[in-house]
């Protein structure tokens, strides 16, 4: 039993870091634009499919495919901001318009994936020789270990960026007070576009790496990742990038520890139970301000 628990904690942390990365991307976008990116999981699946395509057609492994995904997703986010947001801000009800727009984008992405790659599950060949490594009597699934290591490194860089650079501080600043950045000489639209680029870059990275943890992908998986990202940011605190990391870890642990005690199919239910408890107990999230 104890062994199972430790194993679940290992799994939970490794996945939690990935969830944290997905959530951080969504949270930066939410924080800066006050819009939940309801296409977040679909963007992630798009990156996963690009990873599949790169591996299938060109023998490029998922980690190498980051070189394509990361700049591509950053660019898409940057351009998307300028295409959408000025129009959304002019809408009569900007919140509703944004919601519909992003749901629309999620449908477009799913359809795009269906058209290009079909509805059958695809799987990305595992790029490493060994499936897992064992250490001290415990197993570490190699794919998840490498993916988590990558995510952790990116999260560390992101934290350094947010807390140690002018641009990063400006992003944290615009999350807290959108009106005030312009009077300091910062172009709020450019800053938001960069933030949207970074948000999508992070989810693109997560999408490329997710196939190391879950090699089988289907076009409709996006919605569940959007939901995971949403739960993660509510758990951790809306608009708080660090909160998403904590939220991701809590979610990953809940899901994996839940699977020890209950049938595996119930695992997501446990994660959502935690969400509901959280909303009653601490609606602002773990690291959020009331």
């Amino acid at each position: 039993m104890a062994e199972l628990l430790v194993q679940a904690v290992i799994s939970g942390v490794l996945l939690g870091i990935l969830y944290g990365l997905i959530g951080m991307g969504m949270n930066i976008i939410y924080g800066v634009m006050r819009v939940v990116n309801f296409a977040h999981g679909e963007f992630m699946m798009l990156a996963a499919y690009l990873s599949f395509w790169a591996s299938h057609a060109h023998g490029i492994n998922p980690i190498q495919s980051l070189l394509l995904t990361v700049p591509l997703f950053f660019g898409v986010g940057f351009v998307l901001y300028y295409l959408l947001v000025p129009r959304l801000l002019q809408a009569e009800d900007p919140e509703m318009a944004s919601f519909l727009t992003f749901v629309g984008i999620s449908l477009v992405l799913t359809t795009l994936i269906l058209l290009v790659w079909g509805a059958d599950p695809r799987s990305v060949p595992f790029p490493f020789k060994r499936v897992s490594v064992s250490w001290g009597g415990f197993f570490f699934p190699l794919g998840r270990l490498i993916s988590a290591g990558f995510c952790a490194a990116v999260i560390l860089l992101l934290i350094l960026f947010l807390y140690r650079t002018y641009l990063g501080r400006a992003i944290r600043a615009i999350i807290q007070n959108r009106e005030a950045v312009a009077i300091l000489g910062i172009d709020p639209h450019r800053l938001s576009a960069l933030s949207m680029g970074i948000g999508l870059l992070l989810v693109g990275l997560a999408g490329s790496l997710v196939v190391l943890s879950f090699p089988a992908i289907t076009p409709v998986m996006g919605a569940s990742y959007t939901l995971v990202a949403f739960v993660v940011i509510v758990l951790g605190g809306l608009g708080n990038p660090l909160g998403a990391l904590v939220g991701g870890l809590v979610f990953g642990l809940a899901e994996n520890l839940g699977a020890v005690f209950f049938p595996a199919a119930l695992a997501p239910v446990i994660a959502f139970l935690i969400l509901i408890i959280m909303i009653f107990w601490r609606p602002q999230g773990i690291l959020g301000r009331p």
Partner: protein
Amino acid sequence: MTIVAAREIEVSYYGDILVLQGVSVEVEEGKITIVIGPNGAGKSTLLKTLYGLLTPRRGRILYRGEDITGMKVHHFLSKGLAYVPQARSIFPELTVRENLLLGCWIMRRDGKAVQEALEYVFSFFPMLREKQRAKAGTLSGGQQKILEVARGLLTHPEVFLLDEPTATLAPIVAKEIYAFLENLRAHKTTVVLVDQNVKQAFEISDYVYILELGRNRAQGPKAMFQGKLREVIQDWLDYEIPGG
């Protein structure tokens, strides 16, 4: 010489309601110009329009004779104008130091200039040096205002627009701010001050504008209003409490 001017500006937030109905001001370089008037007169709206946060439907904004009507807000600081709005403009979860560093955004590539700018405001407001590492949101209301004023000064603006900087301050701190603004004038900085503390603002002023219901009500050099201030304010009370 006039450094900033608004010429017959008409401004509305939405719809056809004109909050400013053809207001004009001329701000003299190196002087303290105050804008006073009852609540809702349009003082804040005037300052926002001078700083590009609102675009006038009609009329023009000039800076050193150049037409800057419609110029984006984020270009003003590098032009030499700084602004402290009436509403809170600090970033509460960032430290005091981070707030100040963002005030140095336009010179962020010049580390030495940033250091000097920080030292410059620390020398005026030692409290900020002590509180550097504290989150700005944990400062008292007055300390937050001082942070905002200091942040606006980092770039050594030529024109400093302030919207009720002393409204939330204890009298003793307010006094410091007024003394500080006089000191800025001594160093040739132009100050445009919107204030409800009419008496104290008037004392440090060189030129006075009175707005009422979105129009120029009266204007002139300080001497013109000397001894008549009470009358003017009495007028506002009459107008705010009809029949009172």
